[in-house]
Protein backbone atom coordinates (compact mmCIF):
# COMPACT_ATOMS: atom_id res chain seq x y z
CA UNK A 1 0.00 0.00 0.00
CA UNK A 2 1.58 3.25 -1.15
CA UNK A 3 0.06 6.43 0.21
CA UNK A 4 0.94 9.83 -1.21
CA UNK A 5 0.25 12.99 0.78
CA UNK A 6 0.57 16.27 -1.13
CA UNK A 7 1.16 19.10 1.33
CA UNK A 8 1.10 22.86 0.89
CA UNK A 9 2.31 25.89 2.78
CA UNK A 10 -0.19 28.68 3.35
CA UNK A 11 0.19 32.12 4.93
CA UNK A 12 -0.02 31.98 8.71
CA UNK A 13 -3.48 33.39 9.45
CA UNK A 14 -2.40 34.56 12.87
CA UNK A 15 -0.43 37.31 11.14
CA UNK A 16 -2.02 40.43 9.83
CA UNK A 17 -2.58 39.97 6.10
CA UNK A 18 -1.95 42.97 3.90
CA UNK A 19 -2.89 43.51 0.28
CA UNK A 20 -0.25 44.37 -2.35
CA UNK A 21 -0.08 47.66 -4.25
CA UNK A 22 -2.02 46.31 -7.23
CA UNK A 23 -4.78 45.25 -4.88
CA UNK A 24 -4.88 41.81 -6.53
CA UNK A 25 -2.95 39.58 -4.12
CA UNK A 26 -1.56 39.51 -0.61
CA UNK A 27 1.57 41.52 0.02
CA UNK A 28 3.79 38.46 0.26
CA UNK A 29 7.07 40.19 1.15
CA UNK A 30 6.81 39.72 4.89
CA UNK A 31 4.38 36.83 5.15
CA UNK A 32 5.23 33.84 7.25
CA UNK A 33 4.10 30.46 5.95
CA UNK A 34 3.02 27.33 7.71
CA UNK A 35 1.69 23.92 6.73
CA UNK A 36 -2.00 23.96 5.76
CA UNK A 37 -3.65 22.48 8.87
CA UNK A 38 -5.88 20.13 6.86
CA UNK A 39 -2.77 18.75 5.14
CA UNK A 40 -1.39 18.04 8.60
CA UNK A 41 -4.54 15.99 9.25
CA UNK A 42 -4.09 14.17 5.92
CA UNK A 43 -0.52 13.30 6.89
CA UNK A 44 -1.63 12.12 10.32
CA UNK A 45 -4.32 9.87 8.82
CA UNK A 46 -1.73 8.44 6.41
CA UNK A 47 0.64 7.71 9.30
CA UNK A 48 -2.19 6.06 11.25
CA UNK A 49 -2.95 3.84 8.25
CA UNK A 50 0.75 3.00 7.97
CA UNK A 51 0.89 2.04 11.63
CA UNK A 52 -2.12 -0.25 11.48
CA UNK A 53 -1.01 -2.03 8.33
CA UNK A 54 1.67 -2.34 5.73
CA UNK A 55 2.04 0.98 3.96
CA UNK A 56 4.65 3.47 2.88
CA UNK A 57 3.91 7.17 3.10
CA UNK A 58 5.35 9.65 0.62
CA UNK A 59 4.88 13.38 1.16
CA UNK A 60 5.16 15.69 -1.82
CA UNK A 61 5.26 19.47 -1.92
CA UNK A 62 6.09 22.36 -4.22
CA UNK A 63 9.41 24.07 -3.59
CA UNK A 64 8.90 27.34 -1.75
CA UNK A 65 8.90 29.06 1.62
CA UNK A 66 9.27 26.54 4.45
CA UNK A 67 8.88 23.55 2.12
CA UNK A 68 12.11 21.79 3.11
CA UNK A 69 11.32 22.15 6.78
CA UNK A 70 7.78 20.81 6.29
CA UNK A 71 9.03 17.82 4.31
CA UNK A 72 11.74 16.97 6.85
CA UNK A 73 9.19 17.39 9.64
CA UNK A 74 6.93 14.89 7.86
CA UNK A 75 9.80 12.39 7.78
CA UNK A 76 10.46 13.07 11.46
CA UNK A 77 6.81 12.20 12.11
CA UNK A 78 7.13 8.90 10.29
CA UNK A 79 6.78 9.45 6.54
CA UNK A 80 9.04 7.23 4.44
CA UNK A 81 9.83 9.48 1.50
CA UNK A 82 9.73 13.17 0.75
CA UNK A 83 9.55 14.64 -2.74
CA UNK A 84 10.01 18.28 -3.67
CA UNK A 85 8.52 19.52 -6.94
CA UNK A 86 10.66 22.18 -8.58
CA UNK A 87 9.52 24.45 -11.36
CA UNK A 88 7.69 27.72 -11.67
CA UNK A 89 5.11 27.40 -8.91
CA UNK A 90 5.44 30.39 -6.63
CA UNK A 91 3.21 31.03 -3.62
CA UNK A 92 -0.31 31.96 -4.68
CA UNK A 93 -0.34 29.77 -7.81
CA UNK A 94 -3.86 28.74 -8.88
CA UNK A 95 -5.23 25.39 -7.61
CA UNK A 96 -5.82 24.18 -11.16
CA UNK A 97 -2.13 24.68 -12.01
CA UNK A 98 -0.95 23.05 -8.78
CA UNK A 99 -3.31 20.11 -9.21
CA UNK A 100 -2.28 19.55 -12.82
CA UNK A 101 1.43 19.77 -11.89
CA UNK A 102 0.86 17.34 -9.02
CA UNK A 103 -0.85 14.98 -11.44
CA UNK A 104 2.20 15.21 -13.72
CA UNK A 105 4.52 14.43 -10.83
CA UNK A 106 2.38 11.62 -9.41
CA UNK A 107 0.97 9.86 -12.48
CA UNK A 108 3.93 7.59 -13.00
CA UNK A 109 4.43 6.83 -9.33
CA UNK A 110 3.14 3.61 -7.86
CA UNK A 111 0.29 4.70 -5.61
CA UNK A 112 -2.89 3.29 -4.09
CA UNK A 113 -4.17 6.19 -2.08
CA UNK A 114 -3.69 9.94 -2.14
CA UNK A 115 -4.70 11.88 0.96
CA UNK A 116 -4.98 15.66 0.71
CA UNK A 117 -6.28 18.23 3.15
CA UNK A 118 -9.94 18.90 2.34
CA UNK A 119 -9.21 22.54 1.51
CA UNK A 120 -6.71 25.33 2.09
CA UNK A 121 -7.04 28.96 3.13
CA UNK A 122 -6.07 30.18 -0.35
CA UNK A 123 -7.58 27.72 -2.85
CA UNK A 124 -9.70 30.36 -4.56
CA UNK A 125 -10.22 28.35 -7.73
CA UNK A 126 -11.17 25.08 -6.09
CA UNK A 127 -9.90 22.37 -3.78
CA UNK A 128 -6.69 20.78 -5.04
CA UNK A 129 -7.64 17.22 -4.03
CA UNK A 130 -10.76 16.95 -6.18
CA UNK A 131 -9.04 18.70 -9.11
CA UNK A 132 -6.08 16.31 -8.79
CA UNK A 133 -8.35 13.24 -8.75
CA UNK A 134 -10.03 14.40 -11.94
CA UNK A 135 -6.72 15.12 -13.70
CA UNK A 136 -5.53 11.63 -12.69
CA UNK A 137 -8.87 10.07 -13.63
CA UNK A 138 -9.32 8.37 -10.26
CA UNK A 139 -12.32 8.49 -7.88
CA UNK A 140 -12.50 10.96 -5.01
CA UNK A 141 -14.42 11.68 -1.85
CA UNK A 142 -13.87 14.92 0.03
CA UNK A 143 -14.70 16.07 3.56
CA UNK A 144 -13.61 12.70 4.92
CA UNK A 145 -13.07 12.02 8.61
CA UNK A 146 -12.67 8.27 8.75
CA UNK A 147 -10.76 5.85 6.53
CA UNK A 148 -10.62 2.06 6.76
CA UNK A 149 -8.64 0.03 4.23
CA UNK A 150 -9.56 -3.47 3.14
CA UNK A 151 -7.86 -5.07 0.16
CA UNK A 152 -8.30 -2.87 -2.84
CA UNK A 153 -11.03 -0.67 -1.39
CA UNK A 154 -11.32 2.04 1.21
CA UNK A 155 -14.41 2.58 3.35
CA UNK A 156 -14.74 6.26 4.15
CA UNK A 157 -16.98 8.55 6.14
CA UNK A 158 -17.92 11.81 4.50
CA UNK A 159 -19.23 14.55 6.78
CA UNK A 160 -22.45 16.40 6.02
CA UNK A 161 -23.99 19.27 8.00
CA UNK A 162 -25.49 18.68 11.42
CA UNK A 163 -23.20 15.80 12.37
CA UNK A 164 -24.64 13.50 9.69
CA UNK A 165 -22.22 11.29 7.75
CA UNK A 166 -22.38 9.15 4.63
CA UNK A 167 -20.39 5.97 4.26
CA UNK A 168 -18.88 5.14 0.88
CA UNK A 169 -16.83 2.28 -0.47
CA UNK A 170 -14.17 3.49 -2.90
CA UNK A 171 -12.04 1.44 -5.29
CA UNK A 172 -8.35 2.27 -5.11
CA UNK A 173 -6.43 4.15 -6.29
CA UNK A 174 -8.40 7.14 -5.08
CA UNK A 175 -8.00 10.63 -3.69
CA UNK A 176 -9.55 11.46 -0.31
CA UNK A 177 -9.92 15.03 0.98
CA UNK A 178 -9.32 14.73 4.71
CA UNK A 179 -11.31 16.96 7.04
CA UNK A 180 -9.94 15.50 10.25
CA UNK A 181 -7.60 12.65 11.13
CA UNK A 182 -8.73 10.08 13.68
CA UNK A 183 -6.16 11.49 16.13
CA UNK A 184 -4.81 14.99 16.70
CA UNK A 185 -1.86 15.44 14.30
CA UNK A 186 1.33 14.41 16.02
CA UNK A 187 4.14 16.73 16.90
CA UNK A 188 7.78 16.24 15.87
CA UNK A 189 10.34 17.60 18.35
CA UNK A 190 12.62 20.24 16.82
CA UNK A 191 15.73 18.23 17.76
CA UNK A 192 14.39 15.26 15.82
CA UNK A 193 13.64 17.43 12.77
CA UNK A 194 17.17 18.86 12.90
CA UNK A 195 18.60 15.37 13.05
CA UNK A 196 16.49 14.29 10.05
CA UNK A 197 17.63 17.37 8.11
CA UNK A 198 21.22 16.19 8.49
CA UNK A 199 20.48 12.56 7.59
CA UNK A 200 17.60 12.40 5.13
CA UNK A 201 17.47 13.64 1.59
CA UNK A 202 14.66 15.16 -0.36
CA UNK A 203 13.99 13.68 -3.75
CA UNK A 204 13.46 16.36 -6.41
CA UNK A 205 11.12 16.15 -9.36
CA UNK A 206 11.01 18.88 -11.93
CA UNK A 207 7.69 19.71 -13.57
CA UNK A 208 7.63 22.09 -16.53
CA UNK A 209 4.85 24.41 -17.56
CA UNK A 210 1.46 22.78 -17.37
CA UNK A 211 -1.30 23.35 -19.89
CA UNK A 212 -4.44 24.20 -17.98
CA UNK A 213 -7.24 26.72 -18.36
CA UNK A 214 -7.75 28.50 -15.03
CA UNK A 215 -10.15 30.92 -16.72
CA UNK A 216 -10.44 33.37 -13.85
CA UNK A 217 -8.41 36.24 -12.55
CA UNK A 218 -8.50 38.26 -9.34
CA UNK A 219 -9.31 41.85 -10.16
CA UNK A 220 -9.56 43.04 -6.58
CA UNK A 221 -8.49 41.66 -3.24
CA UNK A 222 -9.58 43.41 -0.09
CA UNK A 223 -10.11 42.96 3.61
CA UNK A 224 -13.83 42.75 4.45
CA UNK A 225 -15.09 46.10 5.63
CA UNK A 226 -15.18 46.62 9.32
CA UNK A 227 -17.80 49.07 10.46
CA UNK A 228 -20.88 46.97 10.89
CA UNK A 229 -18.74 44.74 13.07
CA UNK A 230 -18.64 44.46 16.83
CA UNK A 231 -18.82 47.37 19.21
CA UNK A 232 -15.55 46.96 21.08
CA UNK A 233 -15.71 47.10 24.85
CA UNK A 234 -12.83 49.09 26.29
CA UNK A 235 -11.17 48.63 29.65
CA UNK A 236 -9.54 45.89 31.70
CA UNK A 237 -11.05 42.46 32.40
CA UNK A 238 -13.10 43.71 35.36
CA UNK A 239 -14.54 46.57 33.36
CA UNK A 240 -15.27 44.32 30.39
CA UNK A 241 -17.05 41.84 32.69
CA UNK A 242 -19.15 44.67 34.16
CA UNK A 243 -20.08 45.89 30.71
CA UNK A 244 -21.01 42.38 29.54
CA UNK A 245 -23.30 42.02 32.56
CA UNK A 246 -24.89 45.33 31.71
CA UNK A 247 -25.47 44.25 28.09
CA UNK A 248 -27.00 40.94 29.22
CA UNK A 249 -29.41 42.76 31.52
CA UNK A 250 -30.29 45.27 28.84
CA UNK A 251 -31.03 42.50 26.32
CA UNK A 252 -33.01 40.54 28.83
CA UNK A 253 -30.65 37.55 28.80
CA UNK A 254 -30.00 38.02 32.48
Amino acid at each position, binding site marked *: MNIIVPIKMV*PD*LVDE*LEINEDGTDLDRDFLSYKLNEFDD*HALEEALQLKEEGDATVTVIAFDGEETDKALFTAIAKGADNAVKITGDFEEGTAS*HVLAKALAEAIKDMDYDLILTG*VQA*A*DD*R*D*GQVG*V*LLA*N*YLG*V*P*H*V*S*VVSGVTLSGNTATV*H*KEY*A*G*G*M*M*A*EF*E*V*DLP*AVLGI*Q*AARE*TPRYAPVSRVRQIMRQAELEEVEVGDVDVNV*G*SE*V*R*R*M*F*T*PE*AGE*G*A*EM*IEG*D*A*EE*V*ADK*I*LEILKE*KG*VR
Partner: protein
Amino acid sequence: MNQDIFVVAEHLKGSVEDVTYELLGKGRELAGSTGGKLVAVLMGSGAEGLAGSLGAADKVIYVDHPALENFNPEAYAAALADVVKANNPGLVLVPNTSMGMDLAASLSVRNDLPLVAYAIDVAIDGGNVVATSQLYGGKVNAESVLEGDTVVVSVLAGSFPADAGKKDGAPEVEKAAAPAELDNLKVRFKQLIEPEGGDVDITAQEILVSVGRGIQSDENLPMVEELAEALGGAVSASRPIIDNKWLPKTRQVGKSGLKVKPKLYLCLGISGAPEHIEGMKDAELIIAINTDESAPIFEHAHYGSTEDLFDIVPALTEKLKG
Protein backbone atom coordinates in the same frame (compact mmCIF):
# COMPACT_ATOMS: atom_id res chain seq x y z
CA MET B 1 -21.06 34.13 -21.55
CA ASN B 2 -24.21 32.19 -22.36
CA GLN B 3 -27.48 33.28 -20.80
CA ASP B 4 -28.98 30.48 -18.74
CA ILE B 5 -28.21 30.15 -15.04
CA PHE B 6 -28.08 26.58 -13.69
CA VAL B 7 -28.37 25.71 -10.01
CA VAL B 8 -27.38 22.28 -8.73
CA ALA B 9 -30.11 21.16 -6.33
CA GLU B 10 -28.84 19.53 -3.15
CA HIS B 11 -31.11 17.16 -1.30
CA LEU B 12 -30.73 14.86 1.65
CA LYS B 13 -33.21 12.32 3.05
CA GLY B 14 -35.97 13.36 0.68
CA SER B 15 -35.87 17.09 1.11
CA VAL B 16 -34.19 19.90 -0.72
CA GLU B 17 -31.53 21.67 1.35
CA ASP B 18 -31.88 25.38 2.13
CA VAL B 19 -28.67 26.25 0.29
CA THR B 20 -30.45 25.29 -2.94
CA TYR B 21 -33.09 27.95 -2.30
CA GLU B 22 -30.36 30.47 -1.52
CA LEU B 23 -28.80 29.77 -4.93
CA LEU B 24 -32.14 29.81 -6.73
CA GLY B 25 -32.94 33.22 -5.24
CA LYS B 26 -29.62 34.60 -6.41
CA GLY B 27 -29.88 32.73 -9.70
CA ARG B 28 -33.24 34.38 -10.38
CA GLU B 29 -31.66 37.79 -10.01
CA LEU B 30 -28.72 36.84 -12.29
CA ALA B 31 -31.01 35.33 -14.94
CA GLY B 32 -32.82 38.67 -14.88
CA SER B 33 -29.65 40.46 -15.91
CA THR B 34 -28.55 37.92 -18.56
CA GLY B 35 -32.06 37.53 -19.98
CA GLY B 36 -31.73 33.76 -19.67
CA LYS B 37 -33.65 31.01 -17.92
CA LEU B 38 -33.15 29.80 -14.38
CA VAL B 39 -32.77 26.04 -14.43
CA ALA B 40 -32.43 23.65 -11.47
CA VAL B 41 -30.48 20.44 -12.03
CA LEU B 42 -31.97 17.66 -9.94
CA MET B 43 -30.40 14.22 -9.69
CA GLY B 44 -31.96 11.31 -7.86
CA SER B 45 -33.86 8.07 -8.05
CA GLY B 46 -37.64 8.38 -8.05
CA ALA B 47 -37.09 11.93 -6.82
CA GLU B 48 -38.99 13.76 -9.54
CA GLY B 49 -41.48 14.92 -6.91
CA LEU B 50 -38.83 17.20 -5.45
CA ALA B 51 -39.23 19.37 -8.56
CA GLY B 52 -42.43 20.65 -6.96
CA SER B 53 -40.38 22.45 -4.30
CA LEU B 54 -38.13 24.04 -6.94
CA GLY B 55 -40.85 26.38 -8.19
CA ALA B 56 -38.47 29.33 -8.29
CA ALA B 57 -36.84 27.78 -11.38
CA ASP B 58 -38.21 28.15 -14.92
CA LYS B 59 -37.31 24.56 -15.60
CA VAL B 60 -35.96 21.51 -13.79
CA ILE B 61 -33.63 19.11 -15.58
CA TYR B 62 -33.99 15.77 -13.85
CA VAL B 63 -31.62 12.82 -14.14
CA ASP B 64 -32.94 9.55 -12.72
CA HIS B 65 -30.81 6.50 -11.93
CA PRO B 66 -30.61 4.06 -9.00
CA ALA B 67 -27.00 5.20 -8.37
CA LEU B 68 -28.29 8.74 -7.85
CA GLU B 69 -30.67 7.82 -5.02
CA ASN B 70 -28.20 9.14 -2.47
CA PHE B 71 -25.41 11.60 -3.16
CA ASN B 72 -22.39 9.87 -4.70
CA PRO B 73 -19.37 12.00 -5.69
CA GLU B 74 -18.67 10.01 -8.84
CA ALA B 75 -22.24 9.38 -10.01
CA TYR B 76 -23.41 12.95 -9.42
CA ALA B 77 -20.31 14.43 -11.05
CA ALA B 78 -20.79 12.28 -14.15
CA ALA B 79 -24.49 13.10 -14.48
CA LEU B 80 -23.93 16.83 -13.89
CA ALA B 81 -21.11 16.97 -16.45
CA ASP B 82 -23.42 15.49 -19.11
CA VAL B 83 -26.26 17.89 -18.34
CA VAL B 84 -23.98 20.92 -18.48
CA LYS B 85 -22.34 19.74 -21.69
CA ALA B 86 -25.68 19.21 -23.40
CA ASN B 87 -27.15 22.57 -22.38
CA ASN B 88 -24.26 25.06 -22.33
CA PRO B 89 -25.52 27.38 -19.59
CA GLY B 90 -23.67 30.63 -18.88
CA LEU B 91 -23.19 29.91 -15.18
CA VAL B 92 -23.48 26.84 -13.00
CA LEU B 93 -24.02 27.63 -9.31
CA VAL B 94 -22.95 24.79 -7.01
CA PRO B 95 -23.21 24.93 -3.21
CA ASN B 96 -19.78 24.98 -1.56
CA THR B 97 -20.99 22.27 0.81
CA SER B 98 -19.63 18.81 1.47
CA MET B 99 -21.52 17.49 -1.56
CA GLY B 100 -20.82 20.52 -3.70
CA MET B 101 -17.10 20.37 -3.08
CA ASP B 102 -16.96 17.01 -4.84
CA LEU B 103 -19.03 18.36 -7.73
CA ALA B 104 -17.72 21.82 -8.59
CA ALA B 105 -14.07 20.90 -9.08
CA SER B 106 -15.05 17.73 -10.97
CA LEU B 107 -17.25 19.71 -13.34
CA SER B 108 -14.44 22.20 -13.88
CA VAL B 109 -11.98 19.50 -14.98
CA ARG B 110 -14.40 17.16 -16.75
CA ASN B 111 -15.83 19.96 -18.92
CA ASP B 112 -12.74 22.22 -18.90
CA LEU B 113 -14.60 25.16 -17.33
CA PRO B 114 -13.31 27.94 -15.08
CA LEU B 115 -14.19 27.59 -11.40
CA VAL B 116 -14.17 30.00 -8.50
CA ALA B 117 -14.94 28.61 -5.04
CA TYR B 118 -15.98 29.98 -1.61
CA ALA B 119 -18.17 32.67 -3.20
CA ILE B 120 -20.22 34.91 -0.93
CA ASP B 121 -21.44 37.05 -3.83
CA VAL B 122 -21.93 36.60 -7.56
CA ALA B 123 -22.69 39.29 -10.13
CA ILE B 124 -22.70 39.85 -13.88
CA ASP B 125 -20.42 42.70 -14.92
CA GLY B 126 -19.57 43.65 -18.49
CA GLY B 127 -20.84 40.34 -19.80
CA ASN B 128 -18.72 38.31 -17.39
CA VAL B 129 -19.49 36.53 -14.16
CA VAL B 130 -17.74 38.15 -11.19
CA ALA B 131 -17.50 36.14 -7.98
CA THR B 132 -16.37 37.37 -4.57
CA SER B 133 -14.64 34.63 -2.58
CA GLN B 134 -14.05 34.53 1.12
CA LEU B 135 -10.45 33.41 1.62
CA TYR B 136 -7.76 33.14 4.30
CA GLY B 137 -10.13 32.09 7.04
CA GLY B 138 -12.48 34.98 6.33
CA LYS B 139 -9.73 37.61 6.62
CA VAL B 140 -9.54 38.51 2.93
CA ASN B 141 -12.05 38.65 0.07
CA ALA B 142 -11.09 38.22 -3.58
CA GLU B 143 -13.18 39.42 -6.50
CA SER B 144 -12.54 37.23 -9.56
CA VAL B 145 -13.62 37.70 -13.15
CA LEU B 146 -14.48 34.40 -14.85
CA GLU B 147 -14.00 34.17 -18.58
CA GLY B 148 -15.77 31.71 -20.82
CA ASP B 149 -19.14 30.84 -22.32
CA THR B 150 -19.84 28.55 -19.37
CA VAL B 151 -18.35 29.06 -15.91
CA VAL B 152 -18.76 27.43 -12.50
CA VAL B 153 -19.02 29.15 -9.12
CA SER B 154 -19.35 27.33 -5.81
CA VAL B 155 -21.14 29.40 -3.20
CA LEU B 156 -20.84 29.22 0.59
CA ALA B 157 -24.06 28.30 2.36
CA GLY B 158 -25.74 31.24 4.05
CA SER B 159 -24.54 33.81 1.50
CA PHE B 160 -28.01 34.72 0.24
CA PRO B 161 -31.48 34.68 1.81
CA ALA B 162 -33.31 31.40 1.17
CA ASP B 163 -36.76 33.00 1.07
CA ALA B 164 -36.26 34.47 -2.39
CA GLY B 165 -35.78 31.01 -3.88
CA LYS B 166 -38.29 29.07 -1.80
CA LYS B 167 -41.33 28.68 -3.95
CA ASP B 168 -43.56 25.69 -4.57
CA GLY B 169 -44.88 25.25 -8.05
CA ALA B 170 -44.90 23.03 -11.06
CA PRO B 171 -41.91 24.01 -13.17
CA GLU B 172 -41.43 22.26 -16.50
CA VAL B 173 -39.47 19.05 -15.90
CA GLU B 174 -37.12 17.89 -18.63
CA LYS B 175 -35.72 14.40 -18.18
CA ALA B 176 -32.10 13.82 -19.13
CA ALA B 177 -30.54 10.40 -19.69
CA ALA B 178 -28.09 9.10 -17.10
CA PRO B 179 -24.56 8.50 -18.40
CA ALA B 180 -23.38 4.89 -18.90
CA GLU B 181 -20.63 5.51 -16.32
CA LEU B 182 -23.29 5.15 -13.63
CA ASP B 183 -23.57 1.43 -14.23
CA ASN B 184 -19.96 0.86 -13.30
CA LEU B 185 -18.96 3.08 -10.42
CA LYS B 186 -15.76 3.11 -8.41
CA VAL B 187 -17.49 4.91 -5.54
CA ARG B 188 -20.46 3.16 -3.92
CA PHE B 189 -22.83 4.66 -1.35
CA LYS B 190 -23.28 2.35 1.65
CA GLN B 191 -25.32 4.15 4.29
CA LEU B 192 -26.16 7.35 6.07
CA ILE B 193 -24.93 7.58 9.63
CA GLU B 194 -27.07 9.69 11.96
CA PRO B 195 -25.33 11.80 14.58
CA GLU B 196 -25.00 10.25 18.00
CA GLY B 197 -27.32 11.58 20.65
CA GLY B 198 -25.47 13.82 23.05
CA ASP B 199 -25.63 14.68 26.70
CA VAL B 200 -26.70 18.21 25.83
CA ASP B 201 -28.64 19.43 22.80
CA ILE B 202 -26.86 22.69 22.03
CA THR B 203 -29.49 23.66 19.45
CA ALA B 204 -32.06 23.83 22.27
CA GLN B 205 -29.98 26.02 24.56
CA GLU B 206 -30.81 29.71 24.94
CA ILE B 207 -27.33 30.53 26.17
CA LEU B 208 -24.12 29.09 24.76
CA VAL B 209 -20.59 29.77 25.89
CA SER B 210 -18.50 28.61 22.97
CA VAL B 211 -14.78 27.91 23.07
CA GLY B 212 -12.15 27.79 20.35
CA ARG B 213 -8.44 27.28 19.96
CA GLY B 214 -7.77 30.23 22.28
CA ILE B 215 -8.71 28.06 25.26
CA GLN B 216 -5.29 26.42 24.76
CA SER B 217 -5.82 23.29 26.86
CA ASP B 218 -8.65 21.06 28.03
CA GLU B 219 -7.51 21.89 31.55
CA ASN B 220 -9.09 25.29 31.01
CA LEU B 221 -12.53 23.85 30.22
CA PRO B 222 -13.84 23.60 33.83
CA MET B 223 -13.47 27.37 34.13
CA VAL B 224 -15.67 27.80 31.06
CA GLU B 225 -18.19 25.25 32.28
CA GLU B 226 -18.48 27.17 35.51
CA LEU B 227 -19.25 30.35 33.57
CA ALA B 228 -21.83 28.55 31.40
CA GLU B 229 -23.48 27.21 34.54
CA ALA B 230 -23.55 30.65 36.15
CA LEU B 231 -25.24 31.96 33.00
CA GLY B 232 -27.67 29.05 32.89
CA GLY B 233 -26.37 27.78 29.58
CA ALA B 234 -24.12 25.13 28.08
CA VAL B 235 -20.66 24.91 26.53
CA SER B 236 -20.26 24.52 22.78
CA ALA B 237 -17.13 24.69 20.67
CA SER B 238 -15.49 25.24 17.31
CA ARG B 239 -13.97 22.45 15.26
CA PRO B 240 -10.40 22.33 16.67
CA ILE B 241 -11.73 21.59 20.16
CA ILE B 242 -13.74 18.65 18.81
CA ASP B 243 -10.82 17.37 16.72
CA ASN B 244 -8.70 17.43 19.86
CA LYS B 245 -11.44 15.36 21.54
CA TRP B 246 -11.71 17.87 24.37
CA LEU B 247 -15.48 17.94 23.84
CA PRO B 248 -17.83 15.51 22.06
CA LYS B 249 -18.91 16.08 18.45
CA THR B 250 -22.42 16.92 19.68
CA ARG B 251 -21.04 20.20 21.03
CA GLN B 252 -19.67 21.34 17.65
CA VAL B 253 -21.05 24.53 16.10
CA GLY B 254 -20.46 25.13 12.39
CA LYS B 255 -20.59 23.77 8.89
CA SER B 256 -20.08 20.11 9.73
CA GLY B 257 -21.47 20.53 13.21
CA LEU B 258 -24.73 22.06 14.31
CA LYS B 259 -26.45 25.32 13.51
CA VAL B 260 -27.43 27.21 16.65
CA LYS B 261 -29.60 30.24 17.24
CA PRO B 262 -29.37 31.03 20.97
CA LYS B 263 -30.30 34.26 22.68
CA LEU B 264 -26.68 34.66 23.74
CA TYR B 265 -23.60 33.26 22.00
CA LEU B 266 -20.53 34.16 24.01
CA CYS B 267 -17.44 33.06 22.11
CA LEU B 268 -14.10 32.68 23.79
CA GLY B 269 -10.92 32.40 21.72
CA ILE B 270 -12.77 31.66 18.49
CA SER B 271 -11.23 33.30 15.43
CA GLY B 272 -14.40 33.03 13.33
CA ALA B 273 -13.49 30.93 10.31
CA PRO B 274 -16.30 30.93 7.70
CA GLU B 275 -17.11 27.30 8.60
CA HIS B 276 -17.84 28.36 12.16
CA ILE B 277 -19.73 31.54 11.28
CA GLU B 278 -22.12 29.47 9.17
CA GLY B 279 -23.31 27.73 12.32
CA MET B 280 -23.86 30.70 14.66
CA LYS B 281 -24.38 33.91 12.74
CA ASP B 282 -28.12 33.97 13.46
CA ALA B 283 -27.65 34.08 17.24
CA GLU B 284 -29.57 37.01 18.73
CA LEU B 285 -26.65 38.41 20.71
CA ILE B 286 -23.04 37.57 19.92
CA ILE B 287 -20.25 38.64 22.25
CA ALA B 288 -16.72 37.74 21.19
CA ILE B 289 -13.56 37.69 23.26
CA ASN B 290 -10.33 37.21 21.34
CA THR B 291 -6.90 38.77 21.79
CA ASP B 292 -6.42 38.99 18.00
CA GLU B 293 -8.09 42.28 17.10
CA SER B 294 -8.13 41.28 13.42
CA ALA B 295 -10.04 38.03 14.11
CA PRO B 296 -13.00 37.75 11.66
CA ILE B 297 -15.31 36.89 14.56
CA PHE B 298 -15.48 40.60 15.37
CA GLU B 299 -17.12 41.23 11.98
CA HIS B 300 -20.05 39.10 13.08
CA ALA B 301 -20.26 39.83 16.79
CA HIS B 302 -22.37 42.59 18.30
CA TYR B 303 -19.89 43.26 21.08
CA GLY B 304 -16.24 42.37 21.39
CA SER B 305 -13.23 42.58 23.63
CA THR B 306 -9.54 41.89 23.03
CA GLU B 307 -8.86 41.39 26.73
CA ASP B 308 -7.51 37.98 27.75
CA LEU B 309 -10.31 35.42 28.13
CA PHE B 310 -8.46 33.92 31.09
CA ASP B 311 -9.01 37.21 32.96
CA ILE B 312 -12.54 37.91 31.77
CA VAL B 313 -14.03 34.46 32.39
CA PRO B 314 -13.30 34.29 36.16
CA ALA B 315 -14.24 37.96 36.60
CA LEU B 316 -17.57 37.45 34.85
CA THR B 317 -18.31 34.21 36.70
CA GLU B 318 -17.68 35.86 40.02
CA LYS B 319 -19.95 38.80 39.19
CA LEU B 320 -22.72 36.47 38.02
CA LYS B 321 -22.54 34.46 41.21
CA GLY B 322 -22.30 37.80 43.05
